């Protein structure tokens, strides 16, 4: 897998290239994320780094959480995430990962929790066409139509697209371009949109 850091989505804006074209971009406050635990093949069965983000007051964490974070001795953090890596020998406990991992022009992947949309019909959730508004159609304008066949197969196939809960799930956007990296502010600017609301927690990772 790949190395990355955690960040908070601050919002979107627009900047301009030197040729005058506008670039829509998302601003993320990311890192510095200390490595709070290193998992290795021998002890844990897999190699991974656990990183922390967003400092938190002592009273908001349980004694067990505080004890776990004390091992790295880098303060207390609200969010902990694991990053699977091939080789952990390059990293040490308590080392800070910052936005300097990335450089402008690089392609990254960004993982976040998408905005929850609630219980939605098939037109919004799956882009179904619905039924006509007139010409004899009654009470079916936004319905999905038939969902299957008859006595054979006598069931509805699994994964049939139907109405239900939409959004509020983990979404990863691949190949997003890094527009700007500002180590002095711990800020990374990414071209285009990133999953989730403002102030949502996102993970920015290298593609490889």
């Amino acid at each position, binding site marked *: 897998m790949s190395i990355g850091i955690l960040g908070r989505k601050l919002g979107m804006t627009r900047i*301009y290239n030197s040729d*005058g074209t506008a670039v829509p971009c998302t601003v993320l406050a990311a890192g510095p994320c200390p490595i709070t635990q290193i998992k290795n093949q021998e002890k844990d069965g897999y190699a991974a780094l656990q990183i922390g983000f967003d400092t938190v007051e002592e009273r908001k964490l349980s004694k067990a959480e505080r004890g776990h974070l004390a091992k790295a001795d880098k303060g207390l953090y609200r969010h902990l995430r694991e990053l699977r890596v091939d080789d952990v020998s390059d990293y040490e406990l308590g080392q800070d990962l910052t936005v300097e991992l990335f450089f402008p022009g690089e392609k990254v992947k960004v993982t976040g929790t998408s905005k929850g949309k609630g219980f939605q019909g098939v037109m919004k959730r799956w882009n179904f066409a619905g039924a006509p508004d007139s010409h004899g159609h009654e009470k079916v304008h936004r319905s999905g139509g038939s969902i299957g066949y008859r006595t054979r197969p006598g069931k509805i196939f699994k994964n049939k697209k139907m109405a239900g809960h939409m959004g509020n799930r983990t979404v990863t956007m691949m190949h997003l371009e890094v527009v700007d990296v500002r180590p002095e502010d711990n800020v990374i600017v990414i071209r285009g949109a990133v999953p989730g609301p403002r102030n949502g927690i996102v993970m920015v990772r290298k593609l490889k």
Partner: protein
Amino acid sequence: MDIIRKIEREHMRVDLPKFRPGDTVKVHLRIIEGEKERIQVFQGAVLRIKRGTTTSTFTVRKTSDGVGVERIFPFHTPAIERVEVVSEGKVRRSRLYYLRGLKGKAAKIKTKNQWD
């Protein structure tokens, strides 16, 4: 939010002159054709200014061969070489959409008197 403002401030232009809806302006636009770059001038009345940070735009309207032409320019784009204010207009609203329905002399904006 402050960091976004900071990033935006770096991309905003402060060199453009002040103008208001109703003013007649010449917009000198940099146009890149292949490898060559040339300047195109678009002259007309400012119909509206959409205020904002880097997202602010202004609309310029002119009549070309009897056909109304409107162009929306991003205020802060580096593609604008410069903006010249030709004359200041005397108007009583900030969105001059009513000009779209007018032709000829009626569509003319009175210029502001020097002593106003």
